[in-house]
């Protein structure tokens, strides 16, 4: 089987793009990735487009803009893991030796679809009694805080850190730092979570060019980054209720990715994880085995998870700082990993970065511990 590499990355700024549509955003990201790879677009053999709410054949509308007619394209919907799942499909096509050069992109124009928080599908029995997405994470936050004695102030350190990282990222939705006090005084959404504990509604797109090792040697210009694993799991129906302060789904997906990459959690140098809410970042990194259970907020307090710390988490600003245009999110995480591993992280550059991990997890289905989860490991 082929080893898999990423030779080109591109993304739009994540923001509320009131004057643009999803095709314009997707087109910008795809053209940027092709240009970054210095690639003749005719070499692209197949494409996968991740999105959630952009309607029928949204990916094809972008291909028509960039002169890529005729190649196979599949639109991929997998909740917040849609973009990461599109990359995984590209990875599988190359592993199977069906293709040598594949485009994977993700995009979402959410501001034209939603005004407030996203909610689960209304036919879901949990939505019928009043569940909201912030409510899901608020209940997990309360349980985590009760079990580990975490304070509300400690939880606020996560959005404070990620907004500080975002302030160094010109493509992030938020460009300003915030203080703990602002988090604690922001509007209550689902107790104990407040507005600044929640990722924003965002528009944006991101794209990557994925190739075989042979094509990477030929076309990569010496900058190719290895995609060592791209793993996907769906949540299980548990015959017994499980802990809400730990994520078996994230843990199982990560274990699969570590095995495939031949990498131990201790070797990971930095991570982009799905911080859709402040508490989510703690649940992710502990499920991934990057920090001990119940220990993450103490590590954040010490600065371990900040740029310059032992294990920077969400150097791009994460969903809380960079923004969360659903389908684009998982692809943008890989864009950040590639830039860091190439040494193109600019003000956010992590020294001696050699192994990075990206994690997405999304969706809600009653009685299931999360819908779709992806873990990708990239190495220099």
């Amino acid at each position: 089987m082929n080893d898999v590499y990423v030779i080109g990355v591109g993304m739009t700024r994540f923001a509320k793009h009131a004057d643009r549509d999803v095709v314009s955003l997707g087109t910008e990201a795809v053209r940027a990735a092709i240009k970054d790879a210095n690639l003749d677009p005719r070499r692209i053999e197949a494409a996968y487009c991740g999105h959630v709410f952009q309607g029928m054949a949204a990916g094809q509308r972008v291909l028509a803009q960039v002169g890529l007619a005729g190649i196979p394209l599949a639109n991929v919907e997998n909740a917040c893991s849609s973009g990461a799942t599109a990359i995984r499909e590209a990875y599988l096509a190359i592993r199977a030796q069906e293709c040598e050069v594949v485009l994977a992109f993700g995009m979402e124009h959410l501001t034209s679809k939603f005004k407030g928080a996203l909610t689960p599908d209304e036919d879901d029995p949990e939505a019928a009694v009043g569940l909201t997405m912030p409510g899901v994470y608020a209940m997990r936050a309360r349980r985590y805080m009760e079990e580990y004695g975490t304070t509300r102030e400690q939880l606020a350190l996560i959005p404070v850190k990620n907004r500080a990282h975002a302030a160094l990222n010109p493509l992030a939705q938020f460009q300003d730092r915030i203080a703990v006090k602002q988090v604690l005084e922001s509007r209550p959404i689902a107790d104990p979570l407040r507005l600044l504990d929640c990722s924003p509604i965002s528009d944006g797109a991101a794209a990557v060019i994925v190739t075989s090792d042979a094509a990477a040697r030929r076309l990569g210009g010496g900058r190719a980054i290895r995609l060592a694993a791209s793993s996907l799991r769906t949540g299980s129906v548990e015959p017994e209720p499980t802990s809400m302060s730990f994520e078996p789904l994230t843990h199982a997906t990560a274990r699969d990715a570590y095995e495939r990459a031949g990498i131990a959690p201790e070797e990971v140098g930095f991570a982009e994880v799905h911080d859709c809410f402040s508490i989510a970042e703690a649940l992710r990194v502990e499920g991934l085995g990057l920090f001990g259970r119940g220990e993450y907020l103490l590590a954040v307090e010490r600065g371990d998870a900040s740029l310059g710390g032992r294990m920077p988490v969400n150097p791009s600003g994460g969903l809380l700082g960079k923004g969360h245009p659903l389908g684009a999110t998982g692809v943008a995480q890989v864009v950040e990993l590639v830039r860091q591993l190439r040494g193109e992280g600019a003000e956010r550059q992590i020294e001696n970065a050699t192994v990075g991990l990206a994690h997405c997890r999304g969706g809600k289905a009653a009685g299931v511990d999360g819908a779709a989860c992806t873990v990708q490991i990239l190495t220099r």
Partner: protein
Amino acid sequence: MTTATNYASFKPAVLHVTPEGTGHLIGTRCPTCGAHFFPPRAVCSRCLTEDLQTVGLSDAGTLYTFTVIHQSTPGFQIPYVLGYVDLPEGVRVLAQIGVAAEQARIGMPLDLSIEPFGEDKDGNPMLGYRFRPARGSGAGTPAAASVKE
């Protein structure tokens, strides 16, 4: 006592209500390994037995965790307490908790309550369920229900 006859049925088919207005939540039970599921499942996730039995679930449980929802979809009157309730069968049920926010506690005992719960698309009142502090547990009942009625 509220009677069910004036009410449209609750949309998700997880609640059985008698004409007298009493009732219970509906789950499934695996006849092979005894696992219970809520919401109902077609196949046992532990042993893959098919044709699970439809059963009524216990009407008493304990609060595993909760939140106070301050922003919700139209049709829900905010704020309301929402929580996961662990039942003795080993299932965890999400429900609104009929308790004042400051009295909600992880681990508190709760009882199922069949009561008016919102309206259907034509504006007919529906019956639904909440959990309320178990009788004799000392916690008060709230002044206001949390769905537009």
